[in-house]
């Protein structure tokens, strides 16, 4: 994970006729985490998708060094498959991983079809997929939604560990997240 970096220069984002924000710049290197804050609809998810390269920026440039892993509101797991097999699909693409299931509280759910999982359980399953990708750049879009207090603490631990290992983490969340040395960026400061 050495050498991961993320640089945004003068990013502006337009959705339809609305300019959501402009002049947004920041740079992160391995080991740093950034918390994007702001009310609903201010453009947090759009910014995450711009960083991921899934949405073109209206203006500005994004430079990424290292692979990107994305966690958003969609777990990207086949709903009808048992959780174990749905995760196995991504393992075949990402390569085998050390088993995180027990830690994420998923061990007993491996035979349960994904569509029967609760919101929080789906989020944990998506986290397992995210970790399995072993990408240095984590983009988390509202990772705390649907998680209980234990789940929130787990996400905080995972992010801290990821950064200690030299990874970068960008978290978009309207909820507070307690992390040591996390930088905060309020998108409202750049609202157009």
């Amino acid at each position, binding site marked *: 994970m050495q050498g991961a970096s993320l640089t945004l220069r003068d990013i502006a984002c337009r959705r339809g006729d609305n300019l959501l924000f402009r002049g947004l710049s920041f740079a992160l290197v391995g080991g740093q985490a950034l918390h994007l804050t702001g009310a609903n609809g201010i453009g947090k998810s759009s910014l995450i998708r711009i960083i991921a390269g899934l*949405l073109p920026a209206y203006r500005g440039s994004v430079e990424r060094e290292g692979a990107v892993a994305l966690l958003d509101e*969609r777990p990207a797991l086949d*709903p009808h498959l048992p959780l174990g097999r749905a995760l196995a*699909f991504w393992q*075949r*693409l*990402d390569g085998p991983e050390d088993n995180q299931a027990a830690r994420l509280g998923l061990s007993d759910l491996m035979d349960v079809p994904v569509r029967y999982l609760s919101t929080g359980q789906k989020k944990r399953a998506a986290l397992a997929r995210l970790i399995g*990708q072993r990408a240095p750049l984590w983009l988390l879009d509202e990772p705390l939604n649907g998680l209980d207090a234990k789940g929130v603490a787990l996400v905080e631990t995972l992010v801290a560990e990821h950064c200690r290992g030299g990874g970068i983490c960008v978290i978009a969340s309207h909820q507070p997240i307690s992390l040591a040395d996390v930088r905060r960026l309020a998108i409202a400061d750049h609202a157009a």
Partner: protein
Amino acid sequence: MSTLGTLLLRDLKQLLLGGRRGGTLLPVLFFIAVAMLYPFAVGPDAPVLARTGGGVLWIAALLAAILPLDRLIEPDLELGLFDQWTLRGISEEMVIAVRVLAHWLSFAPPLMLAALPGAALVGIDGPTLRTVELGLLLGTPGLAALGVTVAALTAGLRGGAALGGLLVIPLAVPLLVFGAGSLATGGESGLALCGAASLVLLAIAPFAGGAAIRAGRG
């Protein structure tokens, strides 16, 4: 396992008989139903049935291929799978190409098998059946490519399934003209042109489908 193999295996599990997206059974039943209804509508006039039966099988096959359209691309788009593939460097073009193959495997061989009882139902003779089967073999890859492309174009649109059907029909006309046309002339040039039309559609599909998925993001 390679990326291609992993993707193809997942697609086949979803699309084949017993898979969640049931791409096999519905088109086959529809195809047989049309072949069964046709003699009722036209009447028991054996020469008329024998002369027109091949063409009816072709139309039935074309319409049957439209049935699974809405389940080809849209569910994966909604699940966020395409975004995850893109982040892993798996291009949309590759996913679409694999899906064309899986879609073809899930509907064309069963349809060609169903053409055997279908031929008996509309009363066409052996050589005609042979031409129909050859035509289907050459034409269905093009139909699969067209179906996946249109499914990618209409994914996420309201009423996308109905619109998809309407888009496929005019674009499938060359396949039908050459494929079913080979029955009338009994010539092989029709079959060759049907195969050529198929190849063109196959060549375009991954790029058109991939571009459609990227354009639909946002």
